[in-house]
């Protein structure tokens, strides 16, 4: 290791770019949030508004509903993907398996497909009158499934689509984590007569914690900001059933050109995201201290 400021020279270009496209926008939106600014209004200049934008936001039912809907969605998908991913990871970990590499490769597919194409594909599958899902649900189970009129069906489909898109990622990362676990503590726990649940809770979970934490963290961040897929699937409808917060900001701010309010909306969303990830971090790392 060389202790020298030449190191900064190497970091400078990357830091500069990220400063311009990553940090300046943040500062700028912080600033704009305090102003009344609508480029299509009679007076298209910035006028100081103090906290007015934020005050309005607290009473904006559409925004708050959208935020709540996003949290419910994120909670459901992250928990189900974690449970499903763990079960699958355990079930799929047979040592000698013909073609294992091939299967793993296939399961990487959803992760790298463009979210916009994922949405388009699921639209092809689900759209009433055309897709095979409504057709066979009706034919086999007599269920009238319609994502363009039934809010629950649309919300449920958004969840299933996310499960399809991201469960493989959770499965693969948990498999990686489980494979890397040392064998001795598990064997020791079995010798000591621990039952499966005890072994899972007191041995596997604590050892797997870094992996679990990272996976949940990444999935939560992605679930909170998902826009493209749902936009292609339902356009946020029917009514506002699948309008998640990112989508809400996107389809509201630009046509209305109410920039100050949009800035406040964006910042509050960012704030909620940061607080959530921090809470998650504390909850996951804090419990370890409690258990010991």
């Amino acid at each position: 290791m060389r202790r020298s400021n030449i190191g900064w020279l190497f970091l400078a270009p990357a830091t500069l770019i990220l400063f311009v496209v990553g940090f300046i926008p943040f500062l700028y939106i912080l600033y704009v949030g305090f102003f009344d600014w609508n480029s299509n209004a009679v007076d298209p200049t910035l006028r100081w508004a103090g906290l007015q934008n934020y005050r309005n936001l607290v009473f904006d039912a559409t925004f708050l509903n959208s935020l709540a809907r996003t949290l419910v969605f994120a909670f459901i998908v992250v928990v189900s993907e974690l449970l499903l991913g763990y079960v699958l990871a355990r079930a799929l970990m047979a040592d000698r398996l013909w073609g294992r590499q091939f299967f793993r490769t296939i399961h990487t597919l959803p992760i790298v497909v463009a979210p916009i194409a994922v949405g388009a594909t699921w639209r092809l599958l689900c759209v009433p009158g055309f897709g095979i899902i409504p057709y066979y649900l009706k034919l086999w189970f007599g269920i009238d499934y319609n994502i363009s009129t039934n809010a629950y069906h649309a919300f449920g489909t958004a969840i299933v689509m996310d499960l399809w898109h991201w469960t493989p990622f959770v499965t693969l990362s948990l498999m990686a984590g489980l494979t890397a676990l040392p064998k001795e503590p598990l064997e020791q726990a079995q010798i000591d007569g621990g039952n499966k649940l005890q072994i899972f809770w007191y041995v596997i979970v604590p050892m797997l914690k870094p992996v679990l934490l990272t996976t949940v963290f990444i999935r939560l961040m992605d679930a909170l900001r998902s826009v493209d897929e749902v936009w292609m699937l339902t356009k946020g409808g029917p009514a506002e059933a699948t309008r998640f917060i990112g989508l809400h900001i996107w389809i509201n701010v630009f046509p209305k050109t109410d920039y100050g309010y949009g800035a406040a909306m964006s910042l509050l969303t960012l704030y909620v995201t940061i607080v959530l990830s921090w809470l998650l971090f504390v909850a996951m790392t804090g419990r370890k201290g409690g258990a010991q």
Partner: protein
Amino acid sequence: MRRSGLASFLLWIGLTLLTLLPVWWMLVVSMRPRVKLYSKSVLIDAVYWDNFLAVLNSATFLRYLWNSMLVATSNAALVCALGLLAAFGLSRYRISGGDNVFFWLITNRMAPPAVFLLPLFLLFTKWFVFGDAMLFDTKIGLILLYCVFNLPFAIWLLKGMLDGIPLELDEAARVDGATTAQVLSNVILPLARPGLAVTFILTWIFAWNEYLFAATLTSSANARTVTTALAEYVSVTGTNWGEMAAMAFLTTLPALIVLGFVQKHIVAGLTFGALKG
């Protein structure tokens, strides 16, 4: 052992079919003529390329395709170059405050894009304006912008790889009189080449897949990308499913091509090296 192996094998097959079904359906629909579109069979019933030809004969789509290629390739190249430099600095020098800078660089990847749409739109149309030229609706704008999520990713991946190259090799080269630039180009670069290839492919795919920034910060064939083409197409023609499926398939194609190569690294990459795939 043997029975659980069989059960696990069957589970793999079931899950694989489930994973492939949507993509397969997309291919099936894209190869159906208009009269057969409403067939509910999940099998390809004929080899029919007209949907693909129609999409590829559209000048606008080709333009978008070209834009996507250009933006993704330039961005991946830029990100790899800057990422390598930054990773070299972080891996080989003790920089005061380096850990904090590193942490800050990485957090950029976690930023929700919808939150930054508005300020970027305003900056691109009102502030980053040079005479008549502005960053809004330019490929350069997109190339710079995609650094927000790709550069942290590249730095992280490459730092991990450079940390794996023994410091003794640098020192040996320096003893032989190599300058820093020579160490970088003659020692680090050859050894980091596989890592750079992975980084290039993954960042290329992420740039290719991006939609929200492209949709908001471009407005014409000047810089629009394939993902926006697909989204536009859906809103313009609600029912031309065959061509829509063909377009979606073309958008997915690069991912399918690099799939086998990416598989080993994608989990490690996405979890910031917390896991080896």
